[in-house]
């Protein structure tokens, strides 16, 4: 007899067609899986009741071990025990080595990071997939059937290639990704903020080793990430470290500690941190390496004094994020707390004072992201009556292609909600042009050189035609996860080419902000540059067509002097076009136009004569 869950009115599934969906928080340190059952959203525990799965994979010659077991191997077998692999997703080996110079892993010589472990070579996508596989298996044995799909969360600052890496990992783990969801957005959904009042929401995420602050704006059911900030090397582990220092100071344990004693002190520090979350004093006692016993007393006041500088650092990042979003504290409607370290009452109190509002803390801060993802997954799988909300995200920067003269033609403007598909028609520049390069760029600036290049591909097989006669339809498609697909098709023959954008390096959030700022500051200059480029392109076009006409008909239709005059005009124009005076170029074009007027008329007459010759009036 199957075990049933309570469905929403009218939403009972046909047997064997239950729409099981989960939300997965694929974290740097820990990962979780959650689902909605009988209307309640819960994270799913493993068979010994542990909800949290450490994001650590240990490779042995027999295969991979994930989680707590793997974590225990980290100190014994560091080269084969990969932790915090999320930092490597979508990054190049050079990037990783520059950012984390002391990693114990053996990277092979290649641009994309591949690590040598005992069982062979693995890349970050494969390592992430191992973690996801364990969560998938847990979900399927808990729910008693196969999953229809999953929503996987990613940090708001993840770029296209990091998102693609996450998606690839999920696919490799056999998961159908319904959507990637920004972590702060998931947290806001868990608190039901998506159906509440519209406004600005701050998500304060202080985990074990990282701190993220995100400022979101909710309007018309769409969460837009206004700014993000944080510190990738600040978290609860630092709280532990200052406590260990304090204990050593109190007990006068100087010099190098044995590994064991260091571990003991770290465990004690964690214990003290938890005790001080609900009591005012923590009493610690331990034995050092010489079997000498020590007692240390830590009061809550002291603890707060120790962590105050760290908390202050997080608030500084909050201030910066507000500034980036051009908002003040008063604009913030709600503050959502995420991450285990926000359990420390002092953190909550300081954050509350900073934003002048009491933060939302009722949902377990370790689980809140997975819970929000599960709620979203439940809706996307179709278990809600009228699809309560279909959460949308927006593009942070405009997407476009390069046109003649190095100009950027925007196909999808920034802040467009995704998913979206948009098409625009382009044409050829030269007679008989049979190929066209499509250069996909991202950014707000007018010139391609100031935008970010995402990808290039060439459409070949365009039938030879006069310049401007071909119709080439370029379609931009951005899926719900923010991944871009660009295709180009020549309409008469249907030949097409396409590319999926997986940029090789990523954009940090502050870079997006910088790019936006640059586009504002340089607006005037950009406009001028665009107009100059346009004139230069026009000059080149005139030169091109006129030269072709001269080569074809000058001998028959023009006297040597006339031909000389036009050619001189063209040479002058060419010189002018190299300069930066757009008015002069414009004048040059007009001059050549005038010079070639007679020539154009004669060519026209000639072609009419050709068309009519040998035909009687009746025939026409």
């Amino acid at each position, binding site marked *: *007899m199957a*075990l049933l869950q*309570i469905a929403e*009115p009218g939403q*009972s599934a*046909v*047997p*064997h067609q239950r729409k099981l969906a989960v939300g997965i928080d694929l974290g740097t340190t820990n990962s979780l899986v959650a689902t909605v059952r009988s209307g309640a959203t819960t994270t799913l525990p493993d068979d010994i009741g542990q909800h949290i799965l450490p994001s650590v994979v240990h490779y042995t010659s027999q295969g991979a071990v994930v989680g707590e077991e793997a974590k225990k191997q980290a100190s014994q077998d560091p080269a084969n025990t990969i932790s915090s692999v999320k930092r490597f997703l979508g990054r190049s080996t050079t990037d990783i080595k520059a950012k984390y110079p002391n990693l114990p892993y053996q990277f092979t010589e290649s641009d994309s990071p591949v690590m040598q472990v005992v069982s062979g070579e693995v890349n970050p996508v494969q390592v992430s997939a191992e973690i996801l596989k364990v969560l998938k298996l847990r979900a399927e*044995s808990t729910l008693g059937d196969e999953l229809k799909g999953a929503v996987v969360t990613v940090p708001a600052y993840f770029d296209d290639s990091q998102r693609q890496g996450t998606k690839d990992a999920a696919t490799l783990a056999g998961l159908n990704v319904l959507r990637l969801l920004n972590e702060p957005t998931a947290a806001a959904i868990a608190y039901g903020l998506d159906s509440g009042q519209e406004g600005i929401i701050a998500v304060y995420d202080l985990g074990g080793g990282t701190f993220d602050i995100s400022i979101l704006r909710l309007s018309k059911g769409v969460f837009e990430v206004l700014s993000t900030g944080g510190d990738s090397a600040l978290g609860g582990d630092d709280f532990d470290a200052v406590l260990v220092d304090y204990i050593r100071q109190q007990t006068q344990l100087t010099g190098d500690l044995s590994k064991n004693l260091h571990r003991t002190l770290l465990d004690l520090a964690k214990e003290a941190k938890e005790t001080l979350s609900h009591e005012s004093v923590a009493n610690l006692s331990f034995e050092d390496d010489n079997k000498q016993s020590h007692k240390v007393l830590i009061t809550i006041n002291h603890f707060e004094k120790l962590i105050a500088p760290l908390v202050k650092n997080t608030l500084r990042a909050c201030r910066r994020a507000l500034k980036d979003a051009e908002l003040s504290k008063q604009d913030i409607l709600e503050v959502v707390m995420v991450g285990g370290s926000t359990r420390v009452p002092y953190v909550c109190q300081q954050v509350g004072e900073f934003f002048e509002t009491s933060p939302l803390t009722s949902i377990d801060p370790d689980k809140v992201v997975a819970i929000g993802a599960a709620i979203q997954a439940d809706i996307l799988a179709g278990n809600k009556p009228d699809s309560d909300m279909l959460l949308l995200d927006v593009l942070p920067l405009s997407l476009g292609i390069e046109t003649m003269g190095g100009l950027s033609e925007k196909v999808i403007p920034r802040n467009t909600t995704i998913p979206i598909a948009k098409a625009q028609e382009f044409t050829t520049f030269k007679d008989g042009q049979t190929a066209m390069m499509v250069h996909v760029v991202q950014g707000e600036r007018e010139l391609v050189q100031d935008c970010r290049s995402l990808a290039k591909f060439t459409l070949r097989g365009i039938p030879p035609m006069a310049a401007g006669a071909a119709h080439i339809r370029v379609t931009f498609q951005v899926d719900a996860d923010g991944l871009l697909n660009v295709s180009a098709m020549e309409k008469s023959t249907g030949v097409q080419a396409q590319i999926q954008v997986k940029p090789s390096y990523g954009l940090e959030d502050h870079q997006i902000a910088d790019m936006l700022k640059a586009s504002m500051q340089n607006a005037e200059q950009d406009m001028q540059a665009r107009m100059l480029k346009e004139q230069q392109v026009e000059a080149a076009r005139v030169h091109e067509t006129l030269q072709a006409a001269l080569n074809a008909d000058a001998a028959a239709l023009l006297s040597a002097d006339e031909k000389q005059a036009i050619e001189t005009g063209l040479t002058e124009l060419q010189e002018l076009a190299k300069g930066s005076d757009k008015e002069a170029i414009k004048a040059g074009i007009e001059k050549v136009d005038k010079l070639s007027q007679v020539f154009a008329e004669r060519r026209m007459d000639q072609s009419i004569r050709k068309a009519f010759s040998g035909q009687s009036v009746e025939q026409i």
Partner: protein
Amino acid sequence: MGISVSDSAAQRARTFLENRGAGIGLRLGVKTTGCSGLAYVLEFVDEMNEDDQVFEDKGIKVIIDGKSLVYLDGTHLDFTKEGLNEGFQFTNPNANGECGCGESFNV
């Protein structure tokens, strides 16, 4: 006859209803589908229909439409755990056979 609810099922149903923040009870029903003829329906109830009958056991309102009652009279609703999985289970004296998976039955 009627419908009975076990302690664990009543307690879970109460929690789920509280969590949901709305709903007057649970709807039990059958629909003709599935590999073995009839399938069980288990849903929250926001609104009652005209031909609905209400049974109350251990503080939980169980709502069944007249047609389904013929197939469900005497059913006991339980909440059980099987390994990591957990959920509601129907013990139905009217059922004569079930398909292998137990999601559907016949009378």
